[in-house]
């Protein structure tokens, strides 16, 4: 296992933004490769989230020693939108918690890299998700436990914007505010699309940030693909006292591959082998193959 716990730093001492962005680009390739190889999965949902995950794990935000992924005082990250498991696996491999080769076993019988994250089978997975709506409540439980034990760890939970339609999420939002859970951060991957259609055409509950503020949460609203903005938002929420925080990240589903970005119907669909070739060329800024 490779140990790469600390953030890459540029010469000025801050995180190396160029490196983080190129890491995110590489992990997009991993996401596409593993889902295309598996023949199923949710690459577009994973690609909308990957910049945030790279900032979290590789930008020095999440305190997680890859060789001790269950240390009691570690920071927790819960991927509540469990169908974006390829993004989580890619970043866990990049962080050295799991091996890079294991990515090839996504969705294969016997592999702990199941279609949705399984905390009992894979190190670094904090919650078994896949039924949308449940991660924030679990995160609040971790936040309570951390408070009781006097640990300073933080718990981050990522939800999809479609997932925010689940009632349980709002139960958790309400109770986290009541308990002043300032060690809890919700990240919403606000890509404007869900499974059956675009979010505005299913249940248009926008604007989201205003609703979270109405529930007494501290809210940062950012472009979820802008690496400096993501890092800055993480720094801001860490400084908030007495209130849970949300980062509403405006994202593009399928970010990085134009023909996936253009069509929400790519939800839950792997790219074909030839689409993968086109996608890789685009990600690498190479001319499209014929």
């Amino acid at each position, binding site marked *: 296992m490779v140990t790469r716990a600390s953030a890459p730093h540029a010469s000025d001492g801050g995180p190396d933004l160029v490196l983080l962005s190129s890491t995110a680009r590489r992990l997009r390739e991993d996401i596409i490769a593993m889902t295309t190889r598996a023949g199923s999965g949710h690459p577009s949902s994973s690609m909308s989230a990957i910049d945030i995950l790279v900032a979290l794990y590789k930008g020095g935000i999440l305190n997680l020693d890859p060789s001790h992924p269950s240390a*009691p005082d570690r920071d927790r990250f819960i991927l509540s939108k469990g169908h974006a498991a390829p993004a989580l696996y890619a970043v866990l491999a990049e962080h050295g918690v799991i091996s890079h080769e294991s990515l090839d076993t996504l969705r294969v019988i016997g592999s702990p890299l199941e279609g949705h994250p*399984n*905390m*009992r089978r894979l190190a670094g997975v*904090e*919650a*078994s*998700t*896949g*039924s949308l*709506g*449940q*991660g*924030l*409540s*679990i*995160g*609040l*439980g*971790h*936040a*309570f*436990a*951390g408070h*009781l*034990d006097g640990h300073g760890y933080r*718990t981050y939970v990522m939800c999809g914007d479609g997932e925010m339609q689940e*009632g*349980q999420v709002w*139960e*958790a939002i*309400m*109770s986290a505010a*009541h*308990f002043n859970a300032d060690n809890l951060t919700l990240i919403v991957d606000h890509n404007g699309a869900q499974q059956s259609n675009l979010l505005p055409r299913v249940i248009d509950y926008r604007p989201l940030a205003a609703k979270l503020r109405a529930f007494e949460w501290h809210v940062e609203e950012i472009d979820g693909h802008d690496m400096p903005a993501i890092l800055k938002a993480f720094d801001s929420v860490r400084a908030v006292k007495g209130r849970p925080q949300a980062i509403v990240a405006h994202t593009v589903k399928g970010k990085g591959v134009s023909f996936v970005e253009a069509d929400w119907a790519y939800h839950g669909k792997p790219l074909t082998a030839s689409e993968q070739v086109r996608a890789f060329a685009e990600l690498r800024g190479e001319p499209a193959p014929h």
Partner: protein
Amino acid sequence: MSTSTTPFVVSLGAATRDAFGIALRDLGHSEPRIVVVDGDVANSTRTEWFGQVFPDRFFNVGIAESNMVGVAAGLAASGKIPVVSSFAAFLLCNAYDQLRMSVAFPHLNVKVVGTHAGISIGEDGPSQMAIEDFALACSLPGFTVIVPADEAHAHAAVRAMIAHEGPVYLRLGRPKAPRVHEAGSTLEIGKAYQLRDGSDLTIVACGLMTAAALEAHDALAAKGIHARVLDFPTIRPLDVEALVRASRDTGHILVAEEHLAHGGLGSVVAMAVGSHHPCKLGYVNLGNRFAESGTPEALMETYGLTAPHVVEAAVKLVAK
């Protein structure tokens, strides 16, 4: 109370929910990992008694059962022993997917305590009565399912539940329960308790129906029918050996429970007996229907869950 030959005299003890409230509060001193998650009903479930002594370890997350179960899952994943409690109907029916995905699938050490189970809650009526909770809890892989018959076993059940590593469903009732076990009895998970011996049939019962079975035992003896009575405080894991012995020794098993016909003690007993040592089976339960409002006594009478109903079913079964 081991196998006894003296007549059964009904003597009411505390409700199992009350015994739970006291036992949990007392255990809170010796087991600092215990925390309680409540959904605005702590005064009914009696977890408020724990909350009064340990306010920092008591979380009322409001009328939000799904969130309540998820919070318990997170607490367990970070090393606590959360006791998440509400009316059984709301807890199991409202938060079933959370019990399935957030608790059972990752096999977290969450103690799910459902009170106000069965129709014996009385006047509040069907919306508050869990009559399908065994079926639901037994459909959660890895869950242990416990139902104490009386005050003594409710105390013992709380200790057993906390000592057990893994998810547990504990079913509790609202009314005072007749005493069937001696004060200070222990409860071993997975073990049936023989309260009477007999050779003509075995009555397998749980919860309030165990007392009804003991009353029925005496009425049957007067008719020359000798019943063994087994209390089953654990629905899962099931004491299959006790059932095999009962089947072999008595040839007839009557299962009595305050639950729907489908998916409860009757179902799991029939499956075990059918697989290991088939015999003639009979059932006393709620059938396939909701109850209504009424006094607990009137409901048990109207819906067929009293000692005379057990006697009638036993007479029919042994005549088969």
